[in-house]
């Protein structure tokens, strides 16, 4: 179905909003509840490649639209990741592997936007690389933990949406 990616995106939106609300409640700290990277993994198991790419790019844009990150960083990274995942579905053949994929995607994407935003905020001009690394590690570690916690419910919703659109089931372990 041509619009499957959009339906999955709509199904994913509440998850992204919940992440925003969690960020809101954590506003006293520096932590951003980031799940955009993890959100593309489950759809990548079942959507066609072009659909997965579109889906990933939209998820990326949704995160970037309201934040001072150089525009295009996250969409293109997530689109690249989705090409990789859709062409290596064997890497997502069972639940532990999918979970690993979610954590890796989320941390990778988190590193990308954090560094890009830091570059734009002139973090390197001030020359305090040690603090930058510490901040990055905290943020990335948090992103990994969030991916572990949030991925299963998010994937269940996404899978349910994909079932409704009649997409073929994902490749299971051989």
């Amino acid at each position, binding site marked *: 179905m041509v619009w499957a990616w959009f339906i999955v995106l709509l199904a994913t939106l509440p998850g992204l909003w919940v992440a925003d609300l969690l960020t809101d409640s954590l506003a006293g700290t520096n932590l951003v509840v980031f799940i955009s990277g993890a959100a593309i993994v489950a759809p990548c198991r079942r959507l066609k490649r072009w659909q997965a790419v579109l889906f990933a790019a939209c998820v990326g844009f949704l995160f970037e639209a309201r934040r001072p990150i150089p525009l295009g960083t996250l969409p293109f990274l997530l689109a690249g990741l989705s090409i990789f995942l859709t062409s290596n579905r064997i890497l997502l053949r069972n639940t532990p592997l999918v979970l690993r994929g979610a954590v890796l995607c989320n941390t990778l994407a988190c590193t990308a936007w954090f560094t890009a935003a830091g570059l*734009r905020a002139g973090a390197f001009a001030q020359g305090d*690389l040690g603090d930058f690394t510490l901040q990055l590690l905290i943020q990335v570690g948090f992103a990994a933990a969030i991916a572990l916690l949030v991925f299963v419910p998010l994937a269940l919703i996404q899978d349910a949406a994909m079932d409704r659109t009649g997409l073929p089931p994902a490749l299971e372990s051989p």
Partner: protein
Amino acid sequence: MRETPAAEALPSSPIAKARLYLVFLLFAVGFGYVIVGLALRQLIQTGDLKAQYDTQSRRVVLRPPSRGLIYDRNGYVLVENRIRWSIKADLLALQPEIHRKYLALIKAERVRGAPVEFDKLQDKARLEVLQGWLDRVWYVIDEVQPNKRTGARPRPVRPDDEPERRVNAADLRKHLRERRALPFVLVTDLAFPGSGRALRPEEGQRTIARFIDQFPVNGPISLQSDIVRSYPHGSLAAHVLGYIKDTDELPEKVNELADLPMDNLQKLQYTGKKGASGIEQTFDAVLKGMSGWELWTKTSSGYNKELVASNPAQQGSAVNLSLDRDIQCAAERALAQIKDSKGELLPGAAVMLDVNTGEILALASQPTFDPNRLADRVTQVYFDEVDGKGGWMNRAIQGLYAPGSTFKVITAIAGLRHGIVDWDDILECGPSFRVGARDFPEHDPAGYGQVNLEKMLAVSCNVWNYMVGVRLGQPRLAAEARRFGLDTPLLTHVSDLVNGSPYELPYPAARTLVVPDAAYKQRNGFGPWTDGDTANSSIGQGYILTTPLHMACVAASLARGETRTTPSIIHDPGRDGRHVGAEPIGITEAQLTALRSGLERCVTEGTARTVRIPELPYAAKTGTSEYFKNGEKAHLAWIIGYAPADNPAVAFCVLVEGQLDTSTWGGKTAGPVARDMLTTWARKAEAPAGAQPPSDCQRK
């Protein structure tokens, strides 16, 4: 599959084997060479190579320190440092924009079919990009720009705009040549963005705030703050305080850079400041402080990349001057009221000393200048303006003048000491005195009749002095003048606080002071000494030349009953009141009393009676001497003295240079300045200890 025996893989003939071994050997030697070489570099030469790396990839940036403050004797700031906000452009961050502009220019040139001059276009691109940013800065800070309400965009620079609105191509080229790694300054002083507008401080603050509050934060344009010299009272005591100028010699902190190969490291420095005149110059070593440094890594194209280490600059120490801000202010204000018939200021000088310590309370010279206008750089226009008025000269210590009748005090003392005349001797003084074939006139055509010492001082009788002077003879008269130090340079350093300048203020009159005698006249080709010269000398005319500070010292010495006073511009609460070379005057108590009473009568009923201060009896001697200005005769107005009369605390001297068409008289012209200084001093002296009466000398 059949295994191939190793022997089969090798050639069998001995020659072929030898060849093979030779190749192996060559390989082994080659490998050995590489490995030994690497080991050598890694293990043994590592230190050298690292040092080489450091010197090639790092640089030291030296930052000038802020200069020490200068206070008056009561702790009021006379010279301070003001925050200066400047706007700088980061050329490294602008590089992509410049490159885009460059490509666009090349394209445009090719479309036009003109030959492309790449270097010129590169310069043009850089200039245009920077100019674009400068336009935006002006757009934000300029309050008077029209049509802002309609949302007009930043306008490009116009030919009739002030030079500050334009990026100077020559400056930019110089910057790229010499300090490419540092940001390029677009606006030097945000508070005073255009030379044509002398803004009030609050307007300056407004400009700064407009930029900070409105200009977009993240971008190649940054705001930097540094310190500039500021003279909060404007031209007050400008000749004493002096001004500063740019220097490339920064006080370095070599010790803390010792573990770096400082000599080989590339050094970059901001322009520093050093004293160019006044206290700023003579006490530069105290005021200048210590530079700070930053060690940066640099990019291959020579820009600064990362800060590795740094050390802050240290501010210079403070200098406490002996000046009293309020008295100085009173002196300058009074001097500024003396004008000629065209309303132009008459040049002049005023000095006030503490009688006991010799500390200078006021040292004013007119015309003067505003050191604030020299703090950044000396413009030729302003230099010429001040020069045209003769404003660079500190007349109080550099001006050489004939002391006129104020010298009669010394003639009288010489007469008393050598028994030519006594305090109660009465001399018959007619309308003139004949020496040789020439009549020397009294300034009152009627003459003064019977004149004793007291009356002579009160009315400033010339004939009395001619008689005494001629009977004394020039050698004894000159000796007395020298005894009072009229040929001795003043303001030499007494403390070992500073080395470098032999004087507390730059270039006071020293070798040019003249106490004339026969040898002097002969040496200068004026012929043999005559009695007429002696008569002239006895009333402070002729060849004698001295400074207002010297005459103030004579007054202070008289007040203490000594011969010398060592003046100082530096405040030192521990001064013991001893003066170099001072000895008692050497006249009897009665003679001294008569002398002082004569000076008091000068104020109560004599030549200084117009500037009497009813509540403060003081002693003074006026003088009006002749000098030649542009070949014509003009008059100098003098007044020296001390106050209070019974228990002297301060001594003073005021000099005003009359012009050809002005009637200049000691008491009438110079007197009011002395009166204003004394009133201010008295008001402060009456105030309870530790309290400062309200001051009318405000920051500008």
